């Protein structure tokens, strides 16, 4: 087998048309083509503009509270008996997850583009809350689309969005979850394309979203690289992150892609188990196709219809995945694995009790894989896990598993 070289990765992906190999691209109706070219142009203009970057950095520092710490999980490391485990604490961000890194970038871009109204889709509600938060601060009108099913599951986040002044629209079509919210947001955008900026919450959608959201989230990996170097004197041996659409994972992975010694593990939701068909793990069990503006791995039937997904965590309950992950899988740069609902719950409780950190259920999938990985590695090796969010929003889900209702 020829030796794989990833040293030219940054300059090659995506290409000008937004392709990562066969993945990505711009699969939208003609009415939106003008809007996504306009967005691409604006993003290309501002991404290297020192003033724009300074504005984002200031907000990330003063409003979000960055840099987020890297924390050595001493107790958990001893308990698992293997590699040293470090946690990148995105759960400590304002609004409680990594999502705000991206919404700040996109909302500031919206403002520069003269858009007065922002729309967003949300699953767990974290991206909706992060969007409503920046909208409140920047004085933008904000409409959040959320599957009716998720509105039920995440009632507290719905209320938070409303407090922040956003309109939350429950989506009744299809499976009434995240993918349907995305469809509805795209329909809104087509209709209000002149004054509206669509803030996509993950590395999905048509080009330039997957690259742009990745760039905004890459602050996670850039910080973590320096933090790990100063804490341990070397790069981590493995990175672990959960995968819904893949934004927290790519944010952590991206700055390390050309460092070939660093292994990467993306953890999908295996739901009730891959073999039951009730999961949300397209990279582990899906096939390539086109949905929501890009080509990627999808959970679909043989006829090309998108099929129902399941995960205990609303933020992972999505039949697609960012196209860059599809490509990283195919070229063998990252490994994609999965954790079941039960494994995630167990890891949720374990981190809570051993370290005093209550993680989001999405994050708990990454933690569940760390439980498997760490014991196979040696104590001089290190694992860096992205704690993408905190578990406050999941209290009622976890409590109801234990038979409690608030």
């Amino acid at each position: 087998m020829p030796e794989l070289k990833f040293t030219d990765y940054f300059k090659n992906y995506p290409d000008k048309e937004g392709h990562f190999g066969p993945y990505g691209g711009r699969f939208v109706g003609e009415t939106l083509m003008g809007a996504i070219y306009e967005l691409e142009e604006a993003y290309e203009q501002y991404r290297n503009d020192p003033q724009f970057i300074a504005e984002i950095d200031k907000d990330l520092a003063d409003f979000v509270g960055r840099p987020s710490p890297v924390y050595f999980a001493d107790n958990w490391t001893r308990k698992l008996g293997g590699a040293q485990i470090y946690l990148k604490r995105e759960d400590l961000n304002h609004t409680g997850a990594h999502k705000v890194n991206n919404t700040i970038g996109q909302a500031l871009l919206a403002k520069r583009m003269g858009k007065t109204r922002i729309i967003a889709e949300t699953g767990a509600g974290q991206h909706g809350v992060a969007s409503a938060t920046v909208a409140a601060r920047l004085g933008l009108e904000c409409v959040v689309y959320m599957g009716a099913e998720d509105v039920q599951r995440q009632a507290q986040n719905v209320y938070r969005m409303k407090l922040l002044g956003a309109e939350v629209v429950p989506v009744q079509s299809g499976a009434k979850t995240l993918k349907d919210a995305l469809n509805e947001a795209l329909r809104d955008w087509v209709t209000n394309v002149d004054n509206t900026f669509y803030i996509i919450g993950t590395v999905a959608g048509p080009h330039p979203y997957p690259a742009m959201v990745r760039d905004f989230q890459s602050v996670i990996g850039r910080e973590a690289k320096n933090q790990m170097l100063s804490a341990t004197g070397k790069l981590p041996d493995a990175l672990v992150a959960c995968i819904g659409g893949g934004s927290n994972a790519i944010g952590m992975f991206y700055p390390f892609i050309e460092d070939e010694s660093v292994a990467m593990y993306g953890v999908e939701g295996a739901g009730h188990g891959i073999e039951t068909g009730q999961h949300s793990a397209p990279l582990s069990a899906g096939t390539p196709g086109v949905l929501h503006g890009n080509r990627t791995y999808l959970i679909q039937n043989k006829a090309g219809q998108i099929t129902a997904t399941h995960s205990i965590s609303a933020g992972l309950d999505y039949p697609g995945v960012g196209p860059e992950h599809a490509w990283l899988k195919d070229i063998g740069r990252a490994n994609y694995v999965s954790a079941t609902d039960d494994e995630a719950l167990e890891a949720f409780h374990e981190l809570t009790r051993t370290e005093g950190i209550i993680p989001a259920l999405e994050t708990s999938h990454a933690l569940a894989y760390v439980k498997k990985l760490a014991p196979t590695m040696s104590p001089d090796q290190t694992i860096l896990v992205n704690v993408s969010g905190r578990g406050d929003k999941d209290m009622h889900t976890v409590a109801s598993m234990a038979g409690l209702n608030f």
Partner: protein
Amino acid sequence: MSRISECFANLKADGQTALIPYVTAGDPERWVTVPLLHALVDAGADIIELGVPFSDPMCDGPVIQKACERALNNEVTLQHVLDMVAQFRDKNKTTPIVLMGYDNPMEAMGYAKFAEKAAEAGVDGVLTVDSPPEESSELRQALDKYDIDSIYLVAPTTSVERIQRIASFAKGFIYYVSIKGVTGAAALDVAEVREKLALLRHYTDLPLGVGFGIRDGQSAAAVAEIADAVVIGSTLVRCIEEHEKRPEALPAAVAGLLAEMRYAINARNLASA
């Protein structure tokens, strides 16, 4: 000459505007579609747009979304849609059929296989709403091999530069989306459409069809004055929805609605002749 080009040439010779109904295949029952297509032709359809149902129709409004859901509840696949076309062709060899849908079911079948089967079934054109010319070269080449027309959309937001690019790839006719929005959303503004069509005609000799905002005989007739084809979608699909529980009565009811449009268009054509 393709069946679509021939159809437009004949209509032009007669000073007529093409009437193109859209229905979703397999909605609300699989067996209804073929009789419905024949009834539409009898009621004055010149070309038929047959929707391939998709689970995530992001460019469609609620009316066609629900049509897709009904069809998918009947487990209608792209293969079934092709079978319906073949069955329609048993009796009708002249009315062009354009498949309208999303990329993924075609990709799942494989573009080459899809093109081959579509040609065999008697499909004349394919419009993939979420696959602009930039992304559809592979599908286009596959369809070209069988002389199936790749139909493309132009929207109110399409720049002149893009119009030129789209015109260079388009075959059969160009479909102008008359509103910023999803199917069935709003009423169109005839003056605006007139201006855009005039612009389009600088860049293409292809016939121009207009759709997305046409709801009644009056708007159909107004559009017929400026366009080469009028596409009626959500209005007919709403009528199908109303007959969900009485599918036997459906072909006649939908055809009756289309006949009203035909009548309004013809009356206007006569008046302006």
